[in-house]
């Protein structure tokens, strides 16, 4: 454990020093994996599939907000489908538009979930997403997660639908369309997945919000347990037992991944170095603000009445006399109580 903590400290230092470069590199890697997965799954158009283009768009999404990456992925997917069947691409486009207009536009900060869920499905570990979102977000995250699940199953259907021979006659088009809609709305596995994912988010979220020691770790485990139980039941009901082993294995891997993220998250999240530039009448300032805190674990103080010898940490005060907010929520405030390198 000591070595792990040391390792984390080292990662933290590394991150603090190079975060300007690290974030684009990480985004580039994620984008590259995502686009490669899309190309592998529905790469019908060889032009978009070529490596220079994939590299170029990955590079583009490395330096732009994550919404651009999602948009690019949607455009590429529709173009791939368009190459093989314009009709299907229109259906995909319309469904994505409906999902966006009615649901996804209300959770702009979680747009990346729409892309991440299908990609993680392809990597066989989609369970990472609901557990993680329960951990870092609110139950509102159910909305983008459900949209992501729908998008994944939509493309699975599209994949089988493109194999059908199509002539350009109205009847064939209607038949194709009916087939896609039927298999989308009648897809019980999809509906079950949405329900179970929503359940996982709720369970993880509410357990993490409870105030006992190790609430976070327990909530991850509970999320994993909900995953296994939920999918076990849904697979039993649907009579698809061949997925069970993969699901259990995937859940265990997912729990591991989420735990690793959780282990590094607070350190990385709170140690983001800030660069600020400003001026007054006399100087220009280029300030690099390094947060002093080294919170390692979320501090859940359990107040026990009638027990002796328990100390409570005082809330930290910064020089302005405000109580700094160290709540372990993702969207919590930073405390820049000290600055270095001021010149």
């Amino acid at each position, binding site marked *: 454990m000591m070595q792990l903590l040391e390792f984390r400290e080292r990662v933290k230092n590394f991150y603090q020093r190079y975060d300007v470069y690290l974030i684009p590199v990480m985004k580039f890697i994620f984008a590259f994996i995502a686009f490669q997965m899309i190309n592998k799954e529905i790469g019908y158009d060889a032009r978009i599939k070529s490596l220079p283009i994939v590299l170029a768009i990955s590079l583009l999404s490395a330096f732009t907000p994550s919404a651009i990456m999602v948009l690019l992925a949607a455009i590429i997917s529709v173009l791939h489908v368009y190459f093989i069947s314009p009709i299907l691409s229109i259906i995909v486009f*319309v469904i994505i538009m409906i999902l966006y207009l009615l649901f996804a536009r*209300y959770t702009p900060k979680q747009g990346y979930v729409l892309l991440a869920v299908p990609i993680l499905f392809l990597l066989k570990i989609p369970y990472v997403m609901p557990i993680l979102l329960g951990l870092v977000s609110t139950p509102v995250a159910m909305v983008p997660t459900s949209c992501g699940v729908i998008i994944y199953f939509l493309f699975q259907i599209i994949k089988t639908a493109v194999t059908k021979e199509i002539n350009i006659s109205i009847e064939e088009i209607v038949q194709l369309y009916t087939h896609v*809609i039927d298999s989308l709305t009648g897809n019980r596995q999809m509906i079950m997945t949405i329900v179970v994912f929503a359940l996982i988010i709720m369970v993880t979220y509410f357990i993490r919000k409870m105030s006992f020691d190790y609430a976070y770790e327990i909530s991850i485990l509970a999320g994993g347990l909900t995953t296994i139980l939920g999918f076990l039941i849904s697979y039993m009901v649907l009579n698809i037992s061949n997925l069970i082993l993969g699901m259990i294995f995937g859940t265990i891997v997912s729990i591991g991944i989420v735990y690793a993220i959780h282990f590094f998250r607070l350190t990385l999240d709170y140690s983001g170095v800030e660069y*600020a530039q400003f001026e007054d009448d006399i*100087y220009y300032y280029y300030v690099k603000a390094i947060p002093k805190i080294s919170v390692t674990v979320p501090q859940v103080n359990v107040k026990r009445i009638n027990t002796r010898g328990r100390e409570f940490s005082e809330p930290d005060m910064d020089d302005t006399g405000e109580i700094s907010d160290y709540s372990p929520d993702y969207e919590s405030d930073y405390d*820049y109580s000290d600055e270095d390198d*001021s010149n």
Partner: protein
Amino acid sequence: MLNFKKVRLMTKIAVYEKKDGKEDIHLSKYYKTDYVRLQVLKSIISVTVGYGLIIAMILFYKMEYLVRNAITLDYKLIGTYILGFYLMVITLYGLGSFLGYSMKYDASRKKLSRYFKLLKRLEKVYNEGTRES
């Protein structure tokens, strides 16, 4: 001479302006009613488009049936259904975005007031500095 107290304040302000502040300051340009009304309008428009697409998909799905029974269909009933559902959806989304965006505006105001407090403190530091020199 560097005034470290001032630098500290200014850094805080600058970092806030760079991150969360961007949106909060943007929001502060609106009155609450204006902002909420605009957002409600936006979501009503987007819901209308989305609803239209769904209706179009359903109509296309049922096209064979529609074409076959084009004469005997009760268009009035279909129209009422479409309109009724539309009104329901609009009300739901309108109310939801009204509540959601009101809460968002209030939250951003709260953060903004902290920011103004910092600014005021900075002003005080400035005034002290000019008095001394």
